[in-house]
């Protein structure tokens, strides 16, 4: 009964609203503006609802990682998972840190990540510049070939590459962790697209003024594509952080191992099961600095964006 009353109320208010719009529409421009504002406000609310909904969906696994890291192994293995740990165990974190020699692995990973990111950026910028701005014969054919290599499942390269680095005597060095993956066609493609958005006239003008290519690259192209370069940096760092198969294959001492290798190997129980809560705790520990670095880099993304206003 009360439902019905509610309903009828709604109906009347709707009709009222309708007529109000009609009245407004016929008369006052100022009021139209306010209604536009209301519309805009409603749009904003919808935008926020949408964004927050997505955020919740995105966040959930992260939440899961944290709560799993606080569970006991027995609780984790329950076939019906619990949404919140019945007993909170912080011990997993302590165990993770001591068991996996995280300190050393951490330093290794930072070193490999930084060096490979810097070198990779240099190579990517030079290559993207050549593809975007320089004219030479065979350019398009070469670019097509590069794109084509992107499509081959990389897993098939592993065996051959392993043989190569073995004969180059690179086993158990940082070189073997850095060099084979310096070139990424993905990044070159991405940056080339970005470079091409910068009007060619700027480059030609610089040529006319006698500015050298490198100077132009440094002064104009790089600042203008900073957001993309930072995106690449993030992706590359993540790559170093998450690589597993290759480092596991080519290094066998903690001196050169990377963090994921430590993560996977350290928590195998005598029965061959992996103690996932401890592993999750380790993943959380390892993710934290990455997360901070990411926050830090985001400022630069904003700066890059504001600087790119000069173009055109």
């Amino acid at each position, binding site marked *: 009964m009360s439902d019905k009353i509610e309903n009828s109320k709604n109906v009347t208010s709707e009709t009222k609203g309708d007529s109000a719009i009609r009245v407004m529409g016929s008369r006052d421009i100022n009021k139209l503006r306010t209604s536009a504002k209301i519309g805009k406000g409603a749009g904003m609310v919808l935008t926020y609802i949408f964004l927050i909904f997505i955020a919740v969906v995105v966040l959930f696994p992260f939440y899961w990682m944290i709560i799993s890291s606080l569970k006991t192994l027995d609780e984790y293995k*329950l076939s019906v998972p619990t949404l919140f740990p019945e007993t909170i165990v912080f011990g997993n974190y302590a165990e993770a840190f001591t068991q996996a020699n995280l300190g050393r692995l951490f330093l290794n990973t930072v070193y490999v990540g930084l060096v490979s990111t810097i070198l990779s950026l240099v190579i990517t910028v030079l290559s993207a510049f050549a593809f975007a701005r320089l004219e030479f014969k065979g350019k398009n054919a070469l670019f097509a070939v590069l794109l084509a290599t992107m499509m081959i499942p990389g897993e098939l390269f592993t065996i051959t590459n392993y043989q190569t680095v073995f004969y180059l005597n690179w086993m158990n060095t940082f070189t073997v962790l850095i060099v084979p993956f310096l070139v990424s066609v993905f990044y070159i493609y991405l940056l080339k697209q970005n470079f091409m958005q910068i009007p060619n006239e700027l480059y030609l003008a610089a040529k006319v003024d006698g500015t050298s290519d490198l100077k132009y690259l440094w002064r104009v192209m790089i600042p203008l594509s900073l957001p993309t370069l930072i995106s690449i940096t993030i992706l590359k760092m993540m790559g170093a952080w998450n690589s597993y198969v290759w480092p596991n294959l080519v290094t066998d001492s903690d001196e050169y191992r990377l963090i994921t290798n430590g993560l996977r*190997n350290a928590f195998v129980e*005598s029965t061959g099961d992996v103690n996932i809560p401890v592993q999750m705790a380790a993943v959380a520990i390892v993710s934290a600095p990455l997360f901070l670095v990411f926050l830090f880099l985001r400022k630069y993304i904003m700066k890059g964006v504001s600087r790119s206003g000069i173009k055109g």
Partner: protein
Amino acid sequence: MKRILSIILAVAMCMSVLLLAGCGRKKIADADLSGAYDGSEVTITFYHTMSATNLQPVLGDAIARFNELYPKITVEHKQVGDYDAVRNQIKTELTVGGQPNIAYCYPDHVALYNVAKAVVPLDDLMASTVEVTRADGTKEIMGLTEEQIGNYIEGFFNEGRAFGDGKMYTLPFSKSTEVLYYNKTFFEANNLSVPTTWDEMEALCETIKGIAPNSTPLGYDSENNWFITMCEQYGSPYTSATKVDGTNYLFDNETNHAFVEKFASWYAKGWVTTKELSGGYTSDAFKKAEGELGKSYMSIGSSAGAVHQAPDQVNGEYPFEVGIVPIPQVDPANPKVISQGPSVCIFQQENPQEVYASWLLVKFLTTDVEFQASFSEASGYVPAIKNVNDDEIYKEFLDSADGFKTGIAAYSAKVCLEQEKAYYVSPAFNGSSTARDEVGLLMQSCFSNYENAADKMAMIKEKFAAAIEECEY
């Protein structure tokens, strides 16, 4: 344009040729192994899956004692993730001759390495009577004495010879089998007797389902072990290391159809489940609280995982006591149980001294009572040799056996050791791991599709044929 292209092509060709030359295949040759370790400096590597916290210290102690005898042999050991990781790493390393000296292995892995003829046959080394002098002045023969060979548990030892060519490739390191864990408290309260045959098991499942309708009386952890063990118990063909009528895969036969049909009907009645079908370890169902949906009262799983089968204390008391017995049999007079757990194999190397040194270490680890005893205590696996039972400390360990969390590892080790005559060995060949995977999947899909199939036997036959096709492909 043409000139540049031709330059690129030339460079590419040069590199290819260079690399091809560099990658010239490194053939692995059968070395002559009639000599002995000459006391020279060698470094040998050992790949395993032992965790750094509880098992590596045990290995470290043993290596220290080994080094007192052979100080010039440096042993570098390394945990390479789990068993599959060990296999994958060695497989890749074999392509360039970078394989380790010794590795943890399962028969399937050895079959794979042996496609490249990379594993050292141990027959010559075992039979060698050449003497070596140890650092303390004492001597030992390179080979194994009669007594030492007889000391290995036969079923475990025979696994090393299951490769179809009659040669010995592995020695057992530490082993486990499947045992039946049952809820002793529940069995005693309801006056149930523990099953020794599958027929008794069938009746028992029906009884338990009557007592506790919400329960799934039996959980069997591994489908593929179940299938292979049933083949052994019925004496029906599974696979063969050498081809019979052009195939290695012999499991598509009527006996096997029949037992799969029987167990699938159990599954449909809610009497049994497996790890994959239930989506969780069967030990979890076994440990569930009384009356909880899907609680099981029996669980068949690895003897090395005993600690996971015993429930934790609730309010200072154990919810129930666990009993452990051998798994049910088709013919109790001729029992068959699976043998699992790592063996070790030695890889071919250019320097025969490395092979000799590796052999000495393998021999030491698999015959040393102290190591075998302490490793068993730390890991839950049972020793590969019999005279460990005479060891005082190990005896003490076995005496601590009981049906609760604290003593269950010892209890399962005890039950495991009592079955030394029952271990069977299934043949290993290139493709045997595929067969293992396929029969496991076969069990799953037969169980899963049983209830809704109009013609159940036809469905089962179809799944068998599909599994054979996958194996043969």
